[in-house]
């Protein structure tokens, strides 16, 4: 398939221009054209949420969005969370609270959690649980993910 298109967007604050087929997903563009492999693909049909990134601060399944739809958008991925060597409070909370095991779902959960808390820093636990049910994890049984996000939320509110 040809008819490649240019897409101009920012990823973690850096302006990028990539040339992609219209059918290329945002996830593939991030992973292959931008070299950002922290965004993982678990199902490629929008259920597992491992590929969650933030587009203009909204969490999206990057496997279900075409790269060309990101024209002009501000994309944030897991690689952009830490400030240099200093982990984002949510990353630190996942580390402190054993919020990950194999780590495959972790980037998606981190981006989802950060977006939920940026939107509503004081979200109540039942609503948080509901929102975090957007993504799948197969290792942790979710208990330590919830614990991590609650701890990360407290830190983000400081």
């Amino acid at each position, binding site marked *: 398939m040809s008819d490649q298109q240019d897409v101009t967007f920012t990823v973690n604050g850096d302006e990028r221009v990539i040339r992609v087929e219209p059918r290329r997903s945002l996830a593939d563009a991030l992973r292959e054209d931008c070299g950002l492999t922290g*965004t993982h*693909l678990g199902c490629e049909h929008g*259920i597992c949420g491992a590929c969650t990134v933030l587009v203009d601060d909204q969490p999206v399944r990057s496997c279900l969005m075409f790269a060309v739809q990101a024209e002009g958008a501000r994309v944030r991925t897991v690689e952009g969370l830490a400030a240099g060597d200093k982990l984002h409070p949510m990353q630190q909370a996942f580390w402190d609270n054993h919020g990950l095991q*194999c*780590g495959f779902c972790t*980037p998606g959960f981190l981006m989802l959690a950060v977006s939920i808390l940026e939107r509503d820093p004081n979200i109540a636990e039942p609503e948080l649980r509901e929102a975090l049910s957007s993504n799948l994890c197969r*290792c*942790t049984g*979710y208990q330590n993910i919830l614990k991590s996000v609650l701890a990360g939320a407290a830190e983000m509110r400081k």
Partner: protein
Amino acid sequence: MRWIGRPLPRYEDPVLLQGRGRYTADLAQGARILRYLRSPVARGRILTVSAPPKISMITAADLGDVKPICPRLDRSDYVPVAQPVLADDRVTYVGEPIAAVIAGAAAEAEDLAEQVTVEIDAETPVVTLDQALAPDAPLVHEAAAQNTLIDARFETAGVAAAFTSAHQVVEFTLTSRRQSAVPLETRGAVATFDAATGRVTLSASTQMPHLLRTGIADALGIPESELRVATPEVGGGFGQKMPLVPEYVVAVWAARRFACTVAWLEDRLENLTASFHARDQRLYLRGAFDAEGRLLAIDADVLCNVGAYSNFPATCGVEPLMALADMPGPYRVPEYRARARGITTNTCPMAPYRGVSRPVITAAMERLMDCAAARLGLEPLEIRRRNLASEFPHTSVTGVIHDPGSYREAMESAARIVDLTQFRARQQTARAAGRWLGLGLSVFAERTGPGTPAFAARRMVMTPGFERVELAMDPSGFLEARIGSSPHGQGLKTTLAQLIADEIGIAPKQIRVVAGDTDRTPYGWGTFASRSLVIAGGACKLAAATLRERLQSVASQILEAAASDIEISDGRALVRGTDLLVEVGQLARAAYHQSHRFPAIAETGLAAVATYDPYGTFSNACHVAIVAVDIATGQVEIERFVVVEDAGRLINPMIVEGQIHGGVAQGIANALYENVVYDDAGNLLTGSLADYLVPTMSEIPRIEIQHLETLTEASVTGAKGVGEGGTIGAPAAVLNAVSDALAPFGVGIFEMPITPQRILHLLREAGCKA
């Protein structure tokens, strides 16, 4: 400072948290992409496979003398069957690889695959156990009469007499529907040919890197030294990533044939269709009890639908033979008869899945206990008190030796935590108000860290068991531990560093654990059977003790004291009772750079190796589930889930609890949600995660954990394995709880998953009009 017992944050995590972990798919940049053409029908004869000439396609004909995969057991009741790497003449399940195409990119490979034409003369498949066992059933494999790949039996002399003399006989058939492990990262492989050495490096998402090297080298007929398997980060496995798979063999073959890098990255549909399934079992169980509720005998007939082929190296015997050997669990069972069969069908092959048979046999035994208790008017707690083994070592009727555990104590403790008496009162009140609460117990033994004796008893031709560890300290005093086991999310690099740190007297951050790379690590069996902490951990402790002695000998010479007076802790060697000391880093430097002073060390190096091969050890636990069942919708809500677990000495309690949480979540999923469904033609109906219901945070309750710590000599570290217990125990607790809730309607649960539809069906059958 002691490191064992501390919830040390994992060394694995910072990289993973920042998206810098490298999983197999992350290594595929620039690779040519393999895409498999898979059988669209469950059974039939291949007539033609054709593609336009410009397409680079691989079929069975191209693979020449690549050998089929043929896992073996040394048993007369087992029929070996050979799985061609690509289907040649016949297809035997939907999803079986028939051909592969190669392209520059994944999307292009999918485009090309669509241009391949496969003509198959489809035949009526054998999908279910009943179809496979019908007298006139077509044979999946000519060699396997009655579609039986393994037919194992066990019987003690007094079974018939025990049933004759029984006060109560309880019997039922329990069905476990097919499930899939669904690791969040699918399978994948990147194979790179190196023209300079002629070797291939295979990066693959596997739990058994050395066995993968052996299996592929054998299939291709090459020395193992021509292949390096390097396992990057693995996004979960749960057993599904143990077996040798045809797709990896073809990837290595193609890398050699075309002298390039090729990648196969499985998509989720392929994973659900053509990776491995498990737990498709039907179990008839009959128990004989005396008037006091003591078990006199059990009689079991276990049928496992093991799919189209046997997996390598565990074989399709893994489910039936585990059921046969471990059915009695932690109970005293004087007389035992069992038949356990692996039945082949035109469905995706079975592989070990976390718990292997024990989630099903535990559900059966625990349902048996509850049913017998109800007949005899006993509390479920009381009938278990009368039957649990309490003297250790306990040798089961099948000869399995259980080291000391806390079966009874765990149960009593769990009952106290949930306050059984108070619950029964609340249950009565709720029933009067039309709210249906239930409490279910599950008491079980989890065999962990089995060594070669356990697998030799199963008569595996490839007998897993030992683990070898190599420790080497460099001149800066930094220690590298090279292990044969291969973790994939269990935090083993942290846990083993804690073990080694205490044994030597250095900080865990001074230790790097290297795993998964066959060029760098001693031959080992990988991670499964809750074995890595027990066996690789045991080997680490033994090797570390030797290395400590070597450091002590260097220190004794430098400090001019007897080696027996040297104590190493916090990275320093000091002469006991004095302030004479030397840093471990200085010892290391001296050992390397002034080796003439230490001839004994010059001979061994500042290194140590050890191999550990234990009999195995049993963890134990009691799970309690409290549920509310909505009889209008069939919905089950888990109000409370309590685990009292005894995994021996806890090295890193945080990691242990993480294993329990994750295991219980999978067990609850097995009990309530997950089900691989085929139609009558053998087509998979659950090919997406919208159909195969992996639970989310909304479905999994908070899991309350209490630890007991029985120290055992069956494990040199005192630690028992803990990887599978959650999954083994949870289904039984949930099934018993739902049965308890529905007892007023005369409904008992003997199937999993017990979905809302099934609950409503059972209630309707029982005449409930709610």
